[in-house]
Structure formats: C-alpha cells, structure tokens
C-alpha cells in the first residue's frame, strides 16, 4: 500500500505508531495507551519476539484486539 511504501522509503526515526501500515487511529490509540506510541518501540517488541511474524501478530491480536489483516499488514 502507499502507506507501507511511505513507511519503508526512509528510516522510521521518530514517526508515530500510526505511521505503521495496518495501524489506524483506533488501534494506534490502544497501542499508545500501553506505551507503544512510536513506530520504533513497536520495532523493539518485534525484535524481542525474535522477529517471529506469527508471534508478533498473535501479540498484536491478543493484546490490542488487532484484526488478522491489521496484524499481517
């Protein structure tokens, strides 16, 4: 998607969580409320889960009610 292309076209720097493809305002607010207000913090979580996509997606779904498509995006 265009959002994904925009996100990967440059270092994420201090971009907000909603800059991440698949994360809209609603999901972003839930993540931010738990401290995940920046894209780089979400990256940190992904790295802690040893970059395992399935584990990361499960975490997004069980912790923040992300849908399967949001989690995959």
């Amino acid at each position, binding site marked *: 998607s265009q959002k994904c292309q925009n996100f990967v076209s440059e270092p994420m720097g201090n971009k907000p969580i909603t800059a991440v493809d698949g994360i809209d305002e609603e999901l972003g607010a839930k993540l931010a409320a738990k401290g995940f207000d920046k894209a780089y913090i979400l990256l940190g979580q992904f790295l802690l*889960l040893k970059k*395992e996509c399935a*584990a990361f997606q*499960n975490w997004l779904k069980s912790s923040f009610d992300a849908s399967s498509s949001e989690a995959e995006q």
Partner: protein
Amino acid sequence: MEEYKGLTDNELIARLKKYNISHGPLVGTTRKLYEKKVYEYEK
C-alpha cells in the same frame, strides 16, 4: 491460564525449552504471550 502467572521466569523458560517452543526473552511485554503458548501446548 492463571497458574502460569505464578511461574517464575526460569520455570516458564524451562517449560518453553522442554516443549521446544521457540521464544525470546521474558519481559513485561512478552511474558503473557509465552504463558499462552505453554498453556495451549499443555492443553
């Protein structure tokens, strides 16, 4: 699921290893996920 909250990190890691469940470190934001994995495996 409640019983897994009572496990120490070492005990939970031991179970993850015993069941050959791939895992990263147990920190605040990952622990619950791994408790769930062990729970699902044992179930």
